[in-house]
């Protein structure tokens, strides 16, 4: 078993190594930017009436008076030991804060992805095998319209319909799954509904294109010539060969989903990382911004490791190396 796992470990570590330059670029750029910010953090903490001596003391205490390079290496040294610093005002551990907040965002994002996958892939499979038919035309038109509706518009409209007019779902608030699963479901539904349409339309489009291309393959013609029924051909010969591409797009769309969840969280006051970064940006809480940027890059790297592993499961031709 361990011999079999070794190539996987190697593939994973290659991906991880490739992520390091991205991580350094992002976090260093963020450090450099934070020194451009108008009005120092110390000013913000101490208020308008602080004396210049107080400000200097606080700057020295937090290291804000150091040059960008030194501040960055100081931060990086902490990160290596798992220390992302403390929040500016409440002095909480940033790492601990983000673990809770990220769980919320992940729940919303993964549920949205799951819902869109369940809806988009079967519809795409069916319409790709009946191109030009009414349902195909209708769904393609719906998809292009949904792709043109920004998340902040979806949020406003669905909140109006479900929370204000119908009063089925709460407009704001949150309950953790571990505290109360039912209440969690109650609060998570509207955020997920808001993220799902765009994601579904996007996935539908990509999957339909992939299925259409696979349906042109010679081996599908062979299966048709063998007299196999369409449903069998779709499930056995079309679905799996198309999945690797769909999976890649799914991975890439994760950043879009995260961006969308920022909007959703801020609108519904859901305590995820999007909501957190908005308040951190407001209060110039640099350690939090920095940690969220790091987390986002890390998520991306992990997602693509998962996509790679997915390839090896789906495609028998892919060797782990």
């Amino acid at each position, binding site marked *: 078993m361990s011999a079999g796992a070794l190539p996987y470990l190697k593939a994973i570590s290659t991906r991880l190594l490739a992520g390091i330059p991205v991580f350094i670029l992002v976090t260093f750029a963020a450090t450099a930017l934070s020194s451009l910010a108008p009005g120092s953090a110390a000013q913000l903490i101490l208020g308008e009436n602080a004396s210049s001596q107080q400000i200097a003391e606080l700057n020295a205490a937090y290291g804000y008076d150091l040059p960008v390079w030194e501040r960055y290496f100081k931060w990086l040294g902490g990160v290596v030991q798992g220390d992302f610093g403390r929040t500016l005002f409440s002095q909480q551990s940033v790492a601990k804060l983000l673990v809770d907040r990220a769980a919320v965002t992940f729940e919303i994002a993964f549920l949205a992805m799951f819902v869109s996958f369940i809806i988009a892939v079967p519809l795409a499979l069916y319409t790709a095998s009946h191109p030009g038919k009414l349902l195909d035309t209708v769904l393609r038109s719906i998809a292009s319209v949904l792709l043109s509706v920004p998340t902040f518009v979806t949020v406003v409209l669905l909140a109006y319909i479900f929370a204000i007019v119908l009063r089925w779902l709460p407009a704001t608030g949150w309950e953790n799954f571990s505290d109360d699963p039912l209440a969690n479901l109650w609060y998570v539904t509207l955020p997920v509904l808001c993220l799902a349409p765009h994601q579904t339309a996007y996935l539908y489009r990509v999957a339909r294109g992939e299925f259409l291309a696979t349906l042109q393959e010679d081996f599908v013609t062979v299966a048709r010539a063998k007299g196999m029924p369409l449903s069998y051909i779709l499930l056995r010969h079309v679905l799996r060969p198309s999945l690797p591409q769909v999976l890649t797009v799914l991975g890439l769309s994760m950043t*879009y989903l*995260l961006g969308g969840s920022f909007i959703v969280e801020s609108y519904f006051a859901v305590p995820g990382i999007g909501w957190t970064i908005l308040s951190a940006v407001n209060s110039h809480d640099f350690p939090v911004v920095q940690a*969220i940027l790091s987390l986002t890059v890390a998520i991306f790297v992990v997602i693509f490791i998962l996509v790679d592993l997915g390839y090896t499961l789906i495609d028998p031709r892919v060797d782990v190396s």
Partner: protein
Amino acid sequence: MTGARSRKPAGKPVADPQSLSEAVAAARPRLSRLRLPGGTPVEAVCAAFLLLLVLLALFVDFIPGLASPNFPYGDFSQPPDLTLNGILGTDAIGRSILSRVLYGARTSISIVFFATLISLGFGLLFGMVAGFYRGSVERAVDLYANTMASLPPILVILALVASTGSSVFTITVALGILDIGTYARVAKGGVISQSNRDYILAARAMGASDARLLLKEILPNLVPALTAIVPTLMAGLIITEGSLSFLGYGIPAPAPSWGGMIASSTDLLSRYPLLIFGPVLAIVITVYALNTVGDYFARRLSSRERQG
């Protein structure tokens, strides 16, 4: 055509089928003639809409009778009526929503236009150098593109705008930074695929300088691939700019912006739901038109590549 034929009054004597179909063809609605080469009527309408929007944005100051976007023109929160300024209603302090949508279009379009110039310019420069000389420039371009792909655009913009403060200038630059990597990557790919072609080898053999090769021989061949992605990326910028304004980090008030108008009308949504439609329709139709025109370009490009 079939529709027109079936609506033919039953009482009239039936003409012979040949001339009837000719007559129907001659009377066919103009819509089917309104086409981009190889495109559908919808694509033509979208292109026409974008043209109209640009013209409106450019000449919005000269529209006779249009109220100022920043000063109250009538009672607050009026539902839509049939006057020019009231056709989309008035907002919470009585400003004309139509006027604000049109001036918002001007802001959005100019921001997105200049942001695209920035990213297209730098993307082309870095992409061409990366594709031509490869090596460390190529690695840098790839790193940049990967980095931008791994971060949600709104996060990048928020981080930038939070540090520099939000003004039309900083937002334009921040949006411009987003897509440099995408354009650079497309340009790079184009240069790499072009530089092994015979005509480049021939030009090189004749002693053409690198600059000449890049600008005179390769650059014109990059144009189709780059223009094909411009509308779609512009649509993305419109959405990002709108999200930024919606979150309250966009162009400072009182300048009108679509995202900001949507954000402010949400407070009144339960009492005046109709007032949100102006800015919502503006942004959705604009993004739809850009996406559709982008799809058209992409389809033309791929059919050209298949033939060539």
